[in-house]
């Protein structure tokens, strides 16, 4: 009989959505009926989202078997270890090139158990800081590590802390920004769900370094599981003397509150986030004064992103030098990315800075879905840009990526293939930023609206030759004349696609064609009479009743057709053609 130490079931939001809760129950039932004493651990996200629900079997000798796409009825096989070959997943390629600092514990420990976090060196960095280091020494260590803000800005963390530390107290605030608003990004969610104590520990250390006595954790309301885990973690940390008065018996006291955000992308901006905590509309204000001198309720305030803070305990435990040994000259350590879109292995990864985009997509991500071709990588969400496949050798490095027009960003990495229309992607992001603009600055409020209108016109096949020039001109002006990061970066998706995919804009405008066959107004559906077997399946599925019997083949009435594409999906013979442009194929 083989010896199993424990079973682990990934129960982060993505796992739960894939049905992991039912798998967990089935395993529990199976273990109970078999009379085994086998711990089944509820863990966070291991990052292999493409295999969810995911179950790990940890053997007594430390060996781990991973099973993917597990269904409740697979429970007996997994517990007995018989006939499980078809469930096994090959994780070697996905995991071997990753370096896990922030995600060290994610998917390994029970996020709701403070004891398990402590058994894995948790809160040791806090102990070290409070007992052996002065606040200045903590700041010096973080400065030496070269850690930069992981929320997208890339501002040196040590410098941010020292600015806040220099301010006079007595009242200072420490804020953790967990308002992960980028569509296509879920790094912070995974860390908060999978290893909440790490974020708390990082926050308490930061508070000690700058001399803050009170803190706020600002988390998106759309992340109910993350909030629930933080609430229980804070309670446990308080009970263990790791939060509250006289932490670990020292003179340092710090306590924190959770604020659930209410849905506003702009609240990722520091001053807007502060306004939101104060109970107001989340609108940014002019800086200076910077929050480090006048932040929450006018008091000195330091704001760090979730991932930034999650790096801190590791740096103090292992030393700045070990952290700085990873990465490039100016970008140290690791970065967590959420890989999604047309990628084979979507999920959450952590790589050393300096790895090329190509290696991330093809080595870790397993390439493009269904044998597609890499067209572009969208990084940094609405504030970021699209990097074309020809620049895939660019390393993940703040400066190198900035030079291309894209940014490292908070970590969203959306992989696009030949079926993605770049003009449509630009329109998508502008639609987002235009709606999320708080309305304070004219250029952002009205400029993004005008840009969106131009993009919509191009997608509708009504673009004019001057439109691209207008977009670039407007984009530059919005960047120059907006108060906060939202407006200053909103044109980036348009500017980068206009730069790298100029031919696609030209095809839309001059050829009235959407090469990726996405923009509906530029498409027409036709049935190839030579291939059509006249089975009528398409006609029965057509929601617009646009298909009728023709002469031995089905015929689409283009006036009635709503271009939903369902006929093409259901046709077993591939007889439905999608045509685009003035010159039909």
């Amino acid at each position, binding site marked *: 009989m083989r010896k199993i130490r424990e079973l682990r079931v990934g129960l982060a*939001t*993505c796992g*739960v*959505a*894939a049905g992991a809760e039912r798998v967990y129950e089935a395993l529990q039932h199976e273990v109970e009926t078999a009379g085994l004493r086998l711990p089944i651990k509820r863990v966070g996200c291991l990052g292999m*989202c*493409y295999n*969810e629900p995911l179950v790990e079997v940890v053997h007594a000798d430390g060996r781990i078997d991973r099973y993917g796409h597990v269904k409740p009825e697979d429970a007996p096989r997994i517990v007995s270890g018989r006939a499980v070959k078809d469930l096994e997943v090959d994780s070697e390629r996905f995991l071997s090139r990753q370096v896990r600092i922030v995600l060290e514990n994610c998917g390994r420990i029970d996020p709701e158990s403070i004891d398990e976090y402590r058994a894995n060196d948790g809160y040791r960095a806090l102990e070290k800081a409070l007992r052996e280091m002065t606040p200045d020494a903590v700041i010096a260590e973080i400065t030496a590590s070269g850690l930069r803000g992981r929320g997208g800005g890339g501002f040196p963390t040590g410098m941010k802390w020292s600015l806040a530390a220099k301010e006079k107290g007595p009242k200072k605030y420490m804020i953790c920004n967990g308002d*992960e*608003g*980028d*569509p*296509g*990004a*879920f790094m912070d*969610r995974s860390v908060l769900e999978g290893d909440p104590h790490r974020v708390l520990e990082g926050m308490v250390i930061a508070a000690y370094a700058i001399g803050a006595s009170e803190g706020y954790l600002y988390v998106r*309301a*759309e*992340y*109910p599981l993350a909030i629930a885990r933080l609430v229980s973690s804070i309670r446990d940390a308080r009970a263990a003397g790791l939060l509250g008065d006289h932490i670990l018996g020292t003179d340092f006291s710090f306590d924190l509150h959770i*604020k*659930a*955000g*209410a*849905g*506003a*992308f702009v609240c990722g901006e520091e001053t807007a986030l502060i306004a*939101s*905590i*104060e*109970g*107001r*509309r*989340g609108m940014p204000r002019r800086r200076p004064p910077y929050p480090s001198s006048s932040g929450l309720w006018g008091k000195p305030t330091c704001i760090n992103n979730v991932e930034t803070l999650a790096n801190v305990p590791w740096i103090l435990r292992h030393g700045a030098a070990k952290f700085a040994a990873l990465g490039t000259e100016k970008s140290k350590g690791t970065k967590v990315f*959420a*890989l*999604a*879109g*047309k990628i084979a292995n*979507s*999920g959450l990864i952590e790589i050393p800075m300096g790895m090329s985009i190509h290696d991330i997509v093809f080595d870790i991500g397993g390439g493009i879905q269904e044998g597609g071709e890499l067209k572009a990588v*969208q990084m940094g*969400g609405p504030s970021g840009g699209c990097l074309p496949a020809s620049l895939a050798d660019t390393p993940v490095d703040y400066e190198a990526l900035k030079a291309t027009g894209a940014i490292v960003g908070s970590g*969203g990495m*959306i992989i*696009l293939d030949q079926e*993605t229309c770049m003009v449509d*992607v630009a329109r*998508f*992001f502008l639609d*987002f930023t235009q709606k999320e603009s*708080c309305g304070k600055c004219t250029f952002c409020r009205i400029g993004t609206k005008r840009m969106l209108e131009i993009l919509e016109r191009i997608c509708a096949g009504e673009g004019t030759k001057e439109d691209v020039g207008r977009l670039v001109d407007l984009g530059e002006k919005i960047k120059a004349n907006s108060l906060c990061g939202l407006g200053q970066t909103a044109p980036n998706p348009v500017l980068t696609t206009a730069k790298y995919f100029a031919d696609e804009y030209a095809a839309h405008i001059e050829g009235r064609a959407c090469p990726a066959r996405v923009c509906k107004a530029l498409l027409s559906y036709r049935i190839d009479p030579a291939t059509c077997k006249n089975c009528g399946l398409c006609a029965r599925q057509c*929601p617009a009743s646009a298909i009728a019997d023709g002469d031995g083949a089905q015929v689409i009435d283009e006036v009635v057709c709503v271009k*939903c*594409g*369902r006929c093409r999906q259901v046709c077993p013979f591939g007889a439905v053609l999608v045509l685009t442009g003035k010159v039909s194929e």
Partner: protein
Amino acid sequence: MEACFPAAKATRKAWDQIPRRPESIIPLLQSVQEEQGYLSEEGIAQVAAHAHSAASAVYGVATFYSQFRLRRPGLHTLRVCEGTACHVLGSEEVMETLKELLGVEVGETTPDGVFTLESVRCLGCCSLAPAVMVDNETHGRVGRKEIAAILKRYRKDAR
């Protein structure tokens, strides 16, 4: 007002813990919406009174954030994720299908009061794109078939 607003008592009891300051406006609004599913005029007035703020300021906050709604929703709320990953993997089709099957536009409620259709910017489960959230339950990789099954299940439960 008490009689036509039975939930108010419970709300006010839970509110004893919440400081009577403007900074409490967002948590107070969240608690009203949690209980009633939306923000009624009375709810906004109560929040303003508790937080010692003007009702207009509370209304300003309520309309700024996308979480809050001022109309009573249906029994179940469908939120179609329109994040980037979902967008490139067909969230538009999901939305069109739902509009067609439910016969409503975004923000509207079906005449039988069972479903409200909404869109959300990103649910953060991009690897399961396209995704739809029904109340607090997330459904991943939804196609036409899955959507029909989801609607059927919740309709049945609603009876």
